[in-house]
């Protein structure tokens, strides 16, 4: 019979569903962390560059980038570094729970 529409009901299906959810979550967190690092450098590097242009101090651009990187790293540790900070219960509809 056509298997589209069939839900995950067995133990193996549930384990697979949980593993898939973990994979998606890991991928999301990994790229979010990477995005924070880049965004921090661009945001504060940009602010540093603008101020540096106004006061004629070119060094403010790399300093801004480093500050942005430090802020991003600090926030990443705050958000994702704690034990259990990223753990979520499996979706009910994924596990066949009603």
């Amino acid at each position, binding site marked *: 019979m056509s*298997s589209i529409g069939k839900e995950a009901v067995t133990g193996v299906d549930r384990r697979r569903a949980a593993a898939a959810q973990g994979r998606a979550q890991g*991928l999301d967190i990994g790229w979010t962390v990477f995005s924070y690092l880049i965004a921090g450098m661009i945001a504060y590097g940009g602010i540093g560059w603008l101020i540096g242009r106004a006061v004629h101090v070119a060094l403010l651009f790399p300093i801004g980038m480093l500050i942005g990187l430090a802020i991003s790293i600090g926030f990443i540790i705050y958000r994702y570094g704690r034990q259990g900070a990223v753990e979520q219960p499996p979706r009910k*509809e994924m596990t066949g729970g009603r």
Partner: protein
Amino acid sequence: MAGDVRVLASGGCHIFSGCGYPAPSLDSFMFRPLFSVGSFHFTKPMLIAVICGLGVIAFFWAAFHKPQLIPRGIQNIGEIGILAVRDQILRPSLGKRGDTYLPFLVSLFFYIWLMNLMELIPVLQFPAMSRIGFVWPLVFIVYFLYLYLGFKHQGFPGYIKNMIPWDVPKPILIILIPIELLRFFVVQPFTLGVRLFANMFAGHLLLLIFILATWYLASASIGLLFAAGSFAMTFFVFGLELLIDLLQAFIFTTLTAVYIASSLESAH
């Protein structure tokens, strides 16, 4: 035909013949137009994009235009593909309510995968995604979709408000706001596109390096031994690219599902 391939094909450019190794370069990604209509030039990557688009449509049309209760043949393969996307990509991020987006994610996944696989198909041998112009339209579709869904489900003020991590102390919040907004509106779509492009670009370059080296080193000398090594590496990189092609399509589609999920509900 790309420039470096033309150099090799034009004559006996081999090691010890006074001819230097024609290393692949950006020239390897430029193609002469197949035909032109005015100022519009139709090139090989465009042909590959059209073939892939039609290929995906034809495959799913053949699989599901007359669906049977007991699937057979191509319908079986189609169902396996759809279920793989649903259970490995869509459901883990969106849950059952995300089934509305299944056709979009299935199309996206198979189109990207097929476009990537084109680098391994003889004659075509070019991943169109290694030209960034083919990646940006997909990124824009995804970007505007998740912005639209975010504004629709959370409202404009709510969507912007939900981007901000309110759980951090207030003084830190002020310095985090520019990072958070830049990450969401610029870096996130940028990395989504560049990752796919860079992987395909690097993969094609790697394959070209070893294919060209095999031809260049093949001569009646010790070079033949090196050519054999390069030939073996070509097979290794070929296998690696088979995996990377699938992985990149998987990552792009999974992140699309994750971004859609974050638009449907508050992330923080």
